[in-house]
């Protein structure tokens, strides 16, 4: 028997869903990506902690932070995690209409958060804190700006899912697509939990 025949005999029957680990490779890659994102945001949070007292002539952190306002933003983002997980639960049981509703709800809550962040940034600039005012300003805008960029990317992914669902290209068997976007979205929420405490609440 030739080598090719031996290989063909030993080769497993082709299963497009079979993986070496027995796990969904896309999901594994997403978790690896989220693990690496911890280091990315860890770097930005550390930079903020190092420079938060370097305010130069600009405003100090607790002169400009509006805690009640940011608390509402945090609540909005936290609730968007609930709508996201409800969207996943809906598509997993084949309820596409409800899944779209929850996905749209999540995107809307995300837009509310981003709108709030734009308003906050505008207020800070009016009060004299810009990216170049002080090391504190640079670190603050870099950290919260990158988080906002992540939320914006999440909103675009959510709207893409809604578009796919409306065009009938998001069947129940593709619920893992919603799950992947959901993992990303919850991660963004988790990062904000840390930012809200470390940046805004801890003096």
């Amino acid at each position: 028997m030739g080598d090719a025949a031996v290989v063909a005999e030993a080769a497993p029957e082709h299963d497009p869903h079979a993986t070496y680990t027995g796990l969904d490779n896309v999901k594994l890659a997403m978790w690896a990506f989220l693990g690496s994102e911890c280091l990315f945001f860890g770097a930005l949070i550390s930079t903020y902690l190092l420079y938060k007292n370097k305010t130069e002539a600009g405003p100090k952190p607790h002169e400009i932070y509006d805690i009640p306002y940011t608390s509402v933003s945090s609540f909005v983002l936290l609730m968007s995690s609930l709508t996201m997980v409800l969207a996943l639960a809906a598509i997993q049981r084949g309820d596409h209409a409800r899944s779209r509703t929850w996905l749209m709800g999540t995107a809307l809550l995300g837009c509310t958060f981003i709108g709030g962040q734009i308003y906050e940034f505008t207020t800070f600039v009016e009060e004299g804190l810009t990216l170049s005012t002080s090391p504190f300003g640079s670190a603050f805008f870099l950290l919260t700006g990158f988080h906002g960029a992540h939320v914006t990317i999440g909103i675009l992914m959510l709207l893409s899912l809604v578009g796919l669902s409306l065009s009938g290209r998001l069947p129940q068997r593709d619920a893992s697509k919603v799950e992947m976007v959901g993992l990303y979205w919850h991660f963004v929420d988790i990062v904000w939990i840390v930012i809200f405490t470390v940046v805004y609440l801890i003096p």
Partner: protein
Amino acid sequence: MTDHTANTPAHDGDDDVHEEHTHPSEGQYIKIAVILAVVTAAEVLVYYIPSLRPLLVPVLLAMAVVKFIMVALYFMHLKYDSRMFRRFFVLGVILSLAVFSVVLLTFSVLGSAGTG
């Protein structure tokens, strides 16, 4: 027919890859969200109570950790999914905490010389 799963070492009695699919119900998700909202409200409340100032940092950090873990376990399904996923994420978190603790300690030892 070849049993291809037998060729994958991860299936040799290793339950690290065993994927559970018994996720919480919608009612449980809502309960978790309510707990998260209450903890957030408590964080803000603690921030405004002057008598808690000496304990502010540990209390706030503890509440943030509770929220972090709840979202990761229940909303991201780490409690129910394969332990392999949990390891990937926990590795990232631990690595991040370790590396940046060293960075912050280094700068605190160097004092203002490090950050200009």
